């Protein structure tokens, strides 16, 4: 392991320890799990579709809660380092500012994955007791895509936190995350009603803002099996490769932007 990779890992691991030991993550998971766990008893009129609908909602709630946790964690990293002055002893060690930033990013993603893993453990347990079949490969793919989404969201928040204060970074990231689908639909709709310059602007906007909803396959996973018949199969490998590349490109782009702003910032 090179010194640079080791530094990134050590900084990331510190953040994971913090997430592990803070009670907030457990509280979020516990409260959400109680709500979601109640779905175990949703079997009105023995209509399986109703149960599926609730499970779809449950997965959405878990995805949004995990993303919110990642947004809050990422947005607070740098301000907290400055407020507690821990950035000074850390950067006084043989650590570059790039390693510091990537280490923090890795830590936030690992903490997000940790939170999501707790959620998935609850979901899989509840689902197993319901004995409602899902296409396992598709479900695992949806979990993988969610992790990719977390990395895009975390890198975006790091970039925003370089130019905005904590509250503004959290608010803007939450808006971009929550209204990603609406934003995508709206730009597609507006495209036909604007002039050529407007169309260029909308296309530029579509590329500038990552399409978060591309990483959400939870509904497909929940509805993958209907009356014993698989209606949504696992995605082909090329789709996963393309989405991995898409997530990596945006994460790298946002982190590079954050690094450019952080590289010469007086501390």
């Amino acid at each position, binding site marked *: 392991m090179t010194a640079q990779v080791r*530094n990134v890992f050590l900084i990331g691991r510190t953040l994971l320890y913090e997430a592990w030991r803070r009670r907030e993550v457990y509280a979020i998971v516990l409260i959400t799990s109680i709500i979601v766990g109640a779905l175990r008893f949703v079997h009105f009129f023995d209509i399986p579709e109703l149960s599926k609908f609730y499970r779809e909602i449950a997965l959405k709630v878990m995805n949004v809660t995990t993303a919110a946790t990642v947004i809050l964690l990422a947005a607070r990293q740098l301000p907290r380092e400055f407020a507690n002055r821990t950035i*000074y*002893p850390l950067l006084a060690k043989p650590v570059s500012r790039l390693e510091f930033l990537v280490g923090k990013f890795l830590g936030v993603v690992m903490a997000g994955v940790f939170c999501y893993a707790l959620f998935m453990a609850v979901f899989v347990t509840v689902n197993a007791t319901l004995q409602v079949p899902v296409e396992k490969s598709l479900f695992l793919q949806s979990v993988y895509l969610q992790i990719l989404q977390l990395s895009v969201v975390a890198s975006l928040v790091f970039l925003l936190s370089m130019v905005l204060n904590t509250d503004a970074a959290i608010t803007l990231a939450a808006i971009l995350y929550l209204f990603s689908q609406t934003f995508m639909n709206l730009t597609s709709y507006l495209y036909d009603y604007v002039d050529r310059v407007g169309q260029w602007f909308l296309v530029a906007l579509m590329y500038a803002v990552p399409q978060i909803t591309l990483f959400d396959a939870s509904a497909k996973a929940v509805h993958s099996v209907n009356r014993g018949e698989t209606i949504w199969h696992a995605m082909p490998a090329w789709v996963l490769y393309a989405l991995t590349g898409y997530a990596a490109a945006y994460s790298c782009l946002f982190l590079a932007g954050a690094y450019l702003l952080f590289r010469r910032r007086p501390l």
Partner: protein
Amino acid sequence: MDQENVIDIRGLVVDYRTGRSATRAVNGATFSVARGECVGFIGPNGAGKSSTIKAMMGFLFPTKGEVRIFGEPAGAVESKLRIGYLPEVTLYYPFLKGTELLELYGGLHRVPRSRLRERIPTLLEEVGLGDGAGERLIRTYSKGMQQRLGIAQALIAEPECLIFDELSSGLDPVGRHDLRKVLLDLKAKGATIFFSSHELYEVEALCDRVIAIHRGEILFDKSLDSLLGDASDAGLENHFMSLIRRRDEGGTP
């Protein structure tokens, strides 16, 4: 630049910009610290001590001038490998244990894990954090304990040069005594020590040389013996105060 100099600062100017205006924190500071020297950096609040030290660590970038540590530009990884740095009072990661924090900083300083296992208990004992304090979460530490932990993290890699910003802030008299003992041991072993402090008696007890800064400019750079000779019966504090007053009135110290 002299190869024997560990710290070399030439014409350092540091400006803080807020919008279109700029405040000058350091104005043309020039000094050097030779290998094995123990130098105290004194000055009133807002004199430019922390800004100078931050420029030495690469935390901020000089508006003008040059800062070299071990012949490398300030902030270079190669020079940071040989430095132990203690910032002003820091609140370390509350959800780490004392030993974990030292493992983190030691790891970042490329100290082998086997060496860390040996060194951490001894170091904690040395800075007065024995009796299992290292196994507690840092959030249960007092301010003084956090400062002791800060001293331990600065010493974890047995660096050739120590740079301390506000040496004993947050420490009680016992802590100050322990720290002085640790630093005198390191000085005897040949370490280069540079620290800023408000406490003149601390400077008197530890230093070979004293550099004073006032309003961003170097007020004097003298050996301790020469400074004590100048101060004679007036005492170091009174002498320092008279030099500051003379500079404020437009004279030369």
